[in-house]
């Protein structure tokens, strides 16, 4: 059996990734870029959780009777990935604050972005 049931989930998570990517590349406002990163992270996390889907499965908490469980590993991975995402977002916000204090704006200037 393959992932046919999950195709809408894949489309949604890929759409989130693409939206995030678009935001990261096109926006100049630091907060918008941070939001875009968050959207991208969410897309990836949805994808990973979906990878552990088993038809008819339940949450992997043992309670005596033995139904079919979901694959627990992706859930554990996503737990880690979420915390990491939070950490990065928090640090990015701190950097944004520092940038704002130094420059008085949250817009990245063209010169700074495109410098090669």
């Amino acid at each position, binding site marked *: 059996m*393959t992932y046919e049931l999950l195709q809408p989930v894949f489309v949604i998570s890929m759409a989130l990734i693409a939206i995030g*990517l678009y935001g990261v*590349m096109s926006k100049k406002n630091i907060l918008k870029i941070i939001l875009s990163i968050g959207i991208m992270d969410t897309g990836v996390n949805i994808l990973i959780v979906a990878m552990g889907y088993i038809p008819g499965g339940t949450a992997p*908490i*043992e309670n005596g009777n033995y139904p079919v469980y979901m694959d*627990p590993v992706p859930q554990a991975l996503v737990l880690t990935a979420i915390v990491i995402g*939070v*950490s990065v977002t*928090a640090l990015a916000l701190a950097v944004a604050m520092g940038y704002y204090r130094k420059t008085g704006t949250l817009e990245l200037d063209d010169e700074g972005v495109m410098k090669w």
Partner: protein
Amino acid sequence: MRKIVAAIISITVFVILTYFFITSSAPINYTTGGQYINPITHEHSNQSVPQQYLKDSKKDTGASNVVTAIVVEYRGFDTLGEVTVLFTAATGIALLLDELKRRNVPHDEPNFIVKVGSIVVLPFIVVVGTYIFIHGHLTPGGGFPGGAVIASGFLLLLLVHTNRGLPERKLSVTESIAGMTYALIGLLGLVFAHEFLENYLPLGTFTYLFSAGIIPLIYIAIGFKVGSELGGILHNLKGVHEE
């Protein structure tokens, strides 16, 4: 121009990724695997990894929540790393915003309902958070959600007392001690058992609170750590000096 390029790239990525994942023929069960020859014992593992987790977690760890068993025991080293990521981020934020803090920024006084409500709600928040991280091995949740709930209590405090920060020093001490406890629990595994983070406590009775060996201890440490770290982050982002 920039937006058009960005749009083209992201649409391309979307099309390629969607096509790839939709046509992917990955198996939708977790029974594949099991041919791996262990480099330490040179034995075959005879089952797929997730299957083994689901089958053995009760026996191995005594936790009824398999996800917790994976997070804290089977892949506990990842979780130590995860805690460290949060710790690094919190330290980084403190490092960046140390000098940039502003004093005496005028804030709006919060209204009466928020003030009184916070006093009423705060104990419940703390209790719920504590409950979540203590029962991590039995119910969904664990150290991270529990710590985050407690940190939301800190957030409430910061919202109410607009011109005050949190006791940064105390948070920092809590954070350090909790982190050290986690690392120490792991290192003691090398002493009392054979490996880092290996369980060396009795597993207790399945589905009871005092069970699952070191898992609740680790989750308590994580709960304290995450709560104080997120609190520290909020404190630093608010930018008020400790009184």
